[in-house]
Structures are given as structure tokens and as C-alpha cells.
């Protein structure tokens, strides 16, 4: 019996998305343990290197890694085409892994020069990713809402990475390198970076960082959640998009709101609130359409994967409310406001994006395992179905633990209570453990396939 993930000729790769998914899950486990050990990162407000390191572990190591891996799997399905290049994806994985691991280390160790190098490695991986996805988009036989959202998200992640590199450029000290009298062209590059760094620095470190986070969080993550769910939620609930105008409207408004908010945050403009309202309006349209899709569904029972995802979408409500409060110009700058900012970031990244990803992972990983191990045996031998690959009890436990963890951590953040944050993150760690156990169980099918005993002992199957 062959145990390696199978990929038919010219077929979609199983190994590439799985590599991203497993790396992302490892980062999530590390991040949650980090918060349990150091709850002060959330219970107090400060922009220190540890906070930035753990944030990048979650944002790049967990969320970005998973989303990129999921896109290698889902975008060809959603756009009805094949991935442009699997090899480019594999190359990106190496740059991504080295870049992200190095960045998190460099943030924590306060090594700014090394940070710039690792950030460049990561950025090169993103360039490969964007190019690969853009070429895949060009192959799509018909342009649809999801394709528009994917295209927009590629633009916004490019902007987010550019903004991040700009922040790094502004923090670097170029004088020691210039003092070494490098060749003229290197000196010109260094002086150019120095001037650009001075320009970026005049916006202020906190504003630049908020604008950068906004581009990545709302531009890449939320844009994809919205766009891809117009394809996947109907697919998993047996329904259809009910109003194309509503769906298109949500994507257009989201893009307008993102562009305006980015500039308004950067320039500390009074237009920050109006543009935040545009984003909230886009999300309201999205919620309206999603509710209509669900009402029209033919499959009445929702599985746990869909429940995780929809609960995450519902959490956009408190996150949107917090965003409107935080961009109000009359908000006093005090300790509690700082905690509200922590809560906003926590609920957006862990409550919405992480919960949504966990739900989608319960669709993606079983399919990858099932497709890689069993699809070639269909019609020749009874094969297990997708729900046979994981434990619904663990899913249920994980769902409850995640919600308790979110509530307890949120309360701990608001009350600046370190113990509350630690307990809440403990529950989140429990939820993550249930996911890890289920994923381990699914992967075990590559080594111990669930097949009739007579077939297990037979010679490897020869394909036609």
C-alpha cells in the first residue's frame, strides 16, 4: 500500500497545501503557548518587541501561512482552473518558512538588521506567491466575485508587505554601512533607503504600524474571508449566492473603505471614522448576503466546520463596533483605551480570522487526506467518507473551549487581569489541541489507511 500523499498527473498538489497547513498549525500551537506563559503581552498595553514578535508569529506564522496554503488548494477549485506553478509554490514555502521564523526571532532578539534581511526573504516569497496566484487568476475561464476578491487581496498583501518593509527601512541605521565607503551604486541605494525611511518616519511609528496592520488584517485576511465564502459557503451548505449585486457591492465597498482608511490612519485624518463606516457597511452587506445564502440552503444541518466559520463571521459584529469606537477622534488616550486596542486586535485576529480558519481547516485537511489517500481507490474498494477521518466530539469540544477562551481572554484584557488572560489562553490552547489531535488522526490515514483487511495486504494498486 502506498502511503505517500498521491497526486495524479497534472492534478492538484496535496503536499504543497499540507506543508503550509502543518507549518501554520505549529505556529498556532507555539503562539498560544507563548500567550499562556506570558499573558502580560495582552493584559497590558505596550508596543514592545515581544508583543510585535508574538503578533508576527500569529499573523505571518499562523494566519498568513494557512491562508497561503489554503489558497493553493482552494483558489484553483473556486476559480475552476489549475494552479499556475506548483514548483513556484514549493519555492515560496522555503522563503516563507525561513523569512517568518527569522522575523519572529529577530523581533524578539531586537536584531533590526537581521529583521530587515529576514523580512526581505519573506517579501520575496510573497512576490512568488502573488505572481503564482495572478497567473492562476489569468487562467480562470470565467471571472466571478471570488476572483475579484482574490485579485484585490493580492494587491492588499503586496501593499501590506511594502508598508512593513518601509517601517523596517525607517528603523535601520545606514550610517555605519555608508562609513565603510561602499561602491557608488550601493551607497546610492542606501541613501535612497535612508531618505525613504525619513519620509516614512514622519507619519509616526504607531500610525505607520496601524496602517500596516490594517492593510494586512482587513485587506488580505478579511477580503479573502468575504470573497472566498461567496463560493465555499454555498458549496458546503448546498445553496447559491442570492443577490449578486449585494455580493459585488460588499467587495467594492470593502476596497473603497480599505484604501480610504489606510490613508486616513496614516495621515491622522478626520476621515478615519467615515471610511471605517464604509468598511462596516461592506461587512453588513456581506452578513446580509450570507444570511440569505444560509436561508436558501438545501442542507439544513450545519457541520462543525461551517459552525466554526459562521461563528467567526458573527464575531465581526463586536470587532466592527470596536473599530468605530477606536477611530472616534474624541476618544481619550488612557490605559483603558489601550486595552480596547488590545481587545480589538485579539478579537480580530483570534476571534474572527483564527476561528474562521479553524472551520475551513475542517474542510480542507480531511479533503486533502481523503483525496491523497483514497480517491484513487473509489470504485475498487469501499473507502471511508470525510466525516470518518476526524472526531466530531473533538470538534464540539474545541468549539466550546474556543468560545470560553475568547470570552475569558477578552475579559482579562479589559480588566488588565493577567490571570484572566492566562486562563482564557489556556482554554484556547485546549481548543487548538483538539484541532491538532484531529489533524494528527487525519494524517494517520496516510500511514494506516482505513481499508478492508484483504485489501490492505494486497499488492500496490496499478492504475490504468
Amino acid at each position: 500500500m502506498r502511503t505517500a500523499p498521491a497526486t495524479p498527473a497534472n492534478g492538484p498538489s496535496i503536499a504543497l497545501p499540507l506543508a503550509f497547513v502543518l507549518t501554520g498549525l505549529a505556529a498556532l500551537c507555539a503562539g498560544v503557548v507563548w500567550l499562556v506563559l506570558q499573558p502580560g503581552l495582552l493584559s497590558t498595553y505596550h508596543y514592545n518587541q515581544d508583543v510585535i514578535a508574538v503578533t508576527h508569529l500569529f499573523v505571518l506564522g499562523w494566519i498568513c501561512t494557512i491562508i497561503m496554503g489554503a489558497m493553493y488548494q482552494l483558489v484553483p477549485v473556486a476559480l475552476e482552473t489549475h494552479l499556475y506553478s506548483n514548483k513556484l509554490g514549493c519555492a515560496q514555502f522555503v522563503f516563507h518558512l525561513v523569512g517568518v521564523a527569522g522575523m519572529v526571532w529577530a523581533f524578539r532578539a531586537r536584531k533590526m538588521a537581521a529583521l530587515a534581511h529576514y523580512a526581505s526573504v519573506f517579501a520575496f516569497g510573497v512576490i512568488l506567491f502573488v505572481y503564482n496566484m495572478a497567473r492562476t487568476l489569468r487562467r480562470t475561464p470565467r471571472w466571478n466575485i471570488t476572483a475579484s476578491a482574490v485579485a484585490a487581496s493580492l494587491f492588499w498583501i503586496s501593499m501590506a508587505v511594502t508598508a512593513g518593509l518601509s517601517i523596517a527601512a525607517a528603523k535601520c541605521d545606514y550610517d555605519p554601512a555608508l562609513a565603510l565607503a561602499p561602491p557608488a551604486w550601493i551607497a546610492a541605494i542606501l541613501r535612497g533607503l535612508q531618505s525613504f525611511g525619513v519620509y516614512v518616519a514622519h507619519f509616526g511609528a504607531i500610525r505607520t504600524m496601524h496602517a500596516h496592520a490594517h492593510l494586512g488584517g482587513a485587506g488580505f485576511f478579511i477580503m479573502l474571508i468575504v470573497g472566498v465564502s461567496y463560493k465555499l459557503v454555498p458549496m458546503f451548505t448546498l445553496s447559491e449566492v442570492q443577490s449578486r449585486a449585494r455580493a459585488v457591492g460588499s467587495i467594492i465597498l470593502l476596497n473603497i473603505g480599505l484604501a480610504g482608511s489606510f490613508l486616513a490612519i496614516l495621515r491622522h485624518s478626520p476621515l478615519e471614522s467615515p471610511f471605517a463606516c464604509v468598511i462596516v457597511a461592506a461587512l453588513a452587506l456581506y452578513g446580509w448576503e450570507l444570511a440569505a445564502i444560509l436561508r436558501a440552503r438545501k442542507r439544513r444541518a450545519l457541520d462543525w466546520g461551517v459552525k466554526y466559520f459562521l461563528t467567526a463571521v458573527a464575531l465581526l459584529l463586536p470587532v466592527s463596533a470596536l473599530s468605530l469606537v477606536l477611530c472616534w477622534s474624541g476618544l481619550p488616550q488612557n490605559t483603558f483605551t489601550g486595552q480596547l486596542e488590545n481587545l480589538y486586535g485579539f478579537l480580530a485576529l483570534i476571534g474572527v480570522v483564527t476561528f474562521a480558519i479553524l472551520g475551513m481547516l475542517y474542510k480542507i485537511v480531511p479533503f486533502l487526506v481523503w483525496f491523497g489517500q483514497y480517491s484513487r481507490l473509489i470504485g475498487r474498494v469501499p473507502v471511508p467518507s470525510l466525516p470518518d477521518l476526524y472526531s466530531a466530539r473533538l470538534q464540539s469540544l474545541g468549539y466550546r473551549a474556543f468560545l470560553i477562551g475568547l470570552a475569558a481572554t477578552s475579559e482579562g484584557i479589559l480588566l488588565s487581569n493577567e490571570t484572566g488572560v492566562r486562563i482564557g489562553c489556556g482554554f484556547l490552547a485546549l481548543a487548538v489541541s483538539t484541532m491538532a489531535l484531529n489533524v494528527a488522526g487525519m494524517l494517520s490515514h496516510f500511514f494506516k489507511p482505513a481499508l478492508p483487511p484483504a485489501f490492505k495486504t494486497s499488492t500496490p494498486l496499478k492504475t490504468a
Partner: protein
Amino acid sequence: MNNNNNMVEVDARGLMPPHPLAKILEAVAVLPPGAELRARTDWRPIHLLAQLEQRGFTAVTEEQPDASFITRIRR
């Protein structure tokens, strides 16, 4: 599944992934020599095509006016 002379029809619409893939591949496994299988799906069957190629079948997929897809499969 409908059989009509040398034509086998499989309607795999209204099924959650990966059931359409499984249903069509099960039908393909018992497809008589010389027969054609017409499989109807809600989505373009990207994963199916690779599996069919691996099993020595040729397939052509066409989008229908109602936004469903018909894939014609021959050995």
C-alpha cells in the same frame, strides 16, 4: 444513474464535495467498454479530471446554460 444504450448518465448535482467525485468515479468503475458517461455537476470537476486521466479515461467538460457542468467521459 440512468443507462441508455451506450450512454450512462450520472446526476451529481446537489451533493457536497467530495460526494460528486466519489459518485462519478464509482460509475466510471463499472462503465461498459465503448460506453460514454455523462456526468452532471454543480461545479467544474477539477479534481475529477486528474483522477480520470490517471485511470486512462478521456473527459471533456462543458458549462451549461443553467451554470451546471456536463462532463463526457470515455475510456
